[in-house]
């Protein structure tokens, strides 16, 4: 078991600490609030010689992902980080990276997308990556962000798929909390050396010249994508394997989702990221009032844990899906569609309703989630009706 110590860190500091301990070979970087500070802390380690990382300042996030693709294809262990519009600017290359099955770690300090312009937190940027065949983990706080980055490095290399670790901009990235840090040696042993043969075709293996990014004519593209499809389904087991291995060194057992007081819960709220803490407190308040409520946090967002969510909702009467992003598609938020799909898998047919909250940094107060549970119960009991699956929680009428 590792030596551990508890220190006060912001999300960005905890992430930089994880990066230092893993000792990435390459970090491509371009400034964008609220991510800049993260790479600023890491740059101190580079400057003080505490890491061997080559830090490349590029001209925009599109170039940052391009630099990572080149370095990862060569066999290096690479990381980059961005937020909001930066993630949007990077999306073209996300598909290239996953198509080439390159292990790349991308930290997304979640931020709203323009317009209107907002530097504050919501999950719209991450929702742009849903279909890019990147593995995606959401962190509730700095502690989870720190653990997720360490696990993500290993998951990515085992699965040969790039991975995104999300944590909420400002609410987590810039807020101090107590974080339990593992010792350097434990982390480095856990992720293992970054020898170029971690990937099947490293460009630095000059005895075996290969071509990345070759063209696939119509007679091959489908087969290439099917192989990617089949391998992406294997990611579930790989993620669980790494979660188990991590439990041995850090005595914390992670799973695809986290359930809070759901055993006998009639009404369950589901959310991702930092708002889950407030959701748990709201469950406590309602439990004190004798209401049977619970909460579920989605930690592994892609590939989506359909079975686990169906199982967790198998006894619920009502489900409130709390989306920190809107799909503007006449149906509801992105998480709502994933949860509804999962529920189709289970015999139980709970009443599902979708609430959109926290856009552009709107602070989430307990009264907001109390209102959501109350509305859900009224809808489920037919006291109130709805003409849409989705409604906004925090709008000034």
């Amino acid at each position: 078991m590792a030596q551990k110590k508890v220190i006060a860190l912001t999300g960005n500091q905890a992430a930089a600490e994880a990066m230092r301990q893993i000792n990435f070979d390459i970090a491509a970087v371009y400034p964008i609030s609220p991510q800049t500070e993260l790479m600023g802390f890491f740059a101190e380690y580079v400057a003080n010689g505490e890491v061997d990382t080559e830090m490349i300042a590029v001209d925009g996030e599109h170039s940052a992902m391009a630099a990572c693709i080149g370095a990862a294809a060569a066999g290096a262990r690479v990381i980059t980080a961005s937020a909001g519009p930066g993630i949007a600017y990077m999306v073209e290359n996300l598909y290239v990276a996953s198509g080439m099955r390159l292990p790349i770690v991308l930290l997304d300090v979640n931020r709203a997308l323009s317009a209107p312009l907002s530097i504050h937190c919501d999950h719209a940027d991450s929702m742009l990556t849903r279909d890019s065949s990147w593995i995606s983990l959401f962190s509730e706080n700095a502690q989870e962000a720190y653990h997720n980055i360490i696990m993500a490095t290993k998951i990515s290399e085992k699965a040969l798929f790039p991975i995104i670790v999300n944590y909420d901009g400002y609410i987590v990235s810039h807020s101090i909390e107590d974080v339990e840090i593992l010792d350097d040696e434990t982390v480095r042993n856990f992720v293992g050396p970054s020898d170029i043969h971690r990937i099947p075709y490293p460009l630095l293996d000059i005895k075996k010249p290969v071509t990345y990014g070759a063209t696939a004519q119509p007679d091959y593209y489908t087969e290439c994508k099917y192989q990617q499809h089949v391998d992406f389904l294997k990611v579930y087991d790989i993620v669980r394997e790494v979660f188990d291995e991590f439990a041995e060194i850090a005595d914390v057992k992670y799973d695809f989702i986290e359930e809070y007081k759901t055993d006998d819960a009639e009404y369950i709220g589901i959310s991702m990221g930092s708002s889950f803490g407030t959701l748990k407190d709201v469950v406590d308040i309602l439990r004190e009032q004798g209401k049977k409520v619970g909460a579920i946090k989605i930690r592994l967002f892609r590939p989506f844990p359909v079975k686990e969510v169906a199982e967790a909702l198998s006894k619920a009467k009502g489900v409130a899906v709390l989306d920190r992003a809107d799909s503007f598609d006449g149906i509801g938020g992105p998480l709502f569609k994933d949860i509804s799909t999962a529920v189709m898998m289970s015999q139980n047919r709970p009443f599902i309703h979708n609430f959109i909250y926290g856009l552009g940094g709107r602070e989430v107060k307990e009264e907001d989630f109390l209102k959501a549970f109350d509305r859900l119960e009224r809808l489920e009991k037919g006291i109130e009706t709805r003409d849409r699956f989705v409604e906004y929680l925090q709008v000034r009428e």
Partner: protein
Amino acid sequence: MTTAMDKSAIEIRWHGRGGQGTVTAAKMLASAAIIKGKHGQAMPEFGLERSGTPVKVSTRISDQHINTRAPVVNPQIVIITDPSLMFTIKNQIVQGIDENTVFIVNTNFPADKVRKILGIPNNELWIVDASKIALEEFGRNIPNTAMLGAVAKATGIVDLDAVRQEIEEAFSASSKLRALIPQNLKALERGYNEVYKAD
């Protein structure tokens, strides 16, 4: 509104202006508590990130894990690092308070004036002229370390040597910062000693 935090946590709300070190002080307070084995949280609420713009920070200290990420709605302690805010954003400052909320204010006004401006006739009120201390100790109106001393004295939540350790760590990044440590420690002492409880 009963919240789950009621039983186990102290909730503090800071009000200051950008560039005065309010966020740094709030973070240092939480860090000092964490060093002493408590669970701590400091969540700045970012506005325009410009010197002069109002800044609000929610700080929580508890002996249990802090779940919530919501801003502090019913503070037990309100700390005002910039007195001019009492005129410009008074409503935000007194939002969600009750008669038990303790106020710690950086000002050279007499207590009764502060009570009148804020409309808090009976609340426990601590006053310190942190700006004067900062100007005298290092010639700049950065009252945060003096305020920390005052908070330690007024609330006893965290003791001075934890804050000292935190200051030494926070100011160790560069030689320029290290040079500021002595004055900051002096400001901390003076804040601790010069804060007084208004009757």
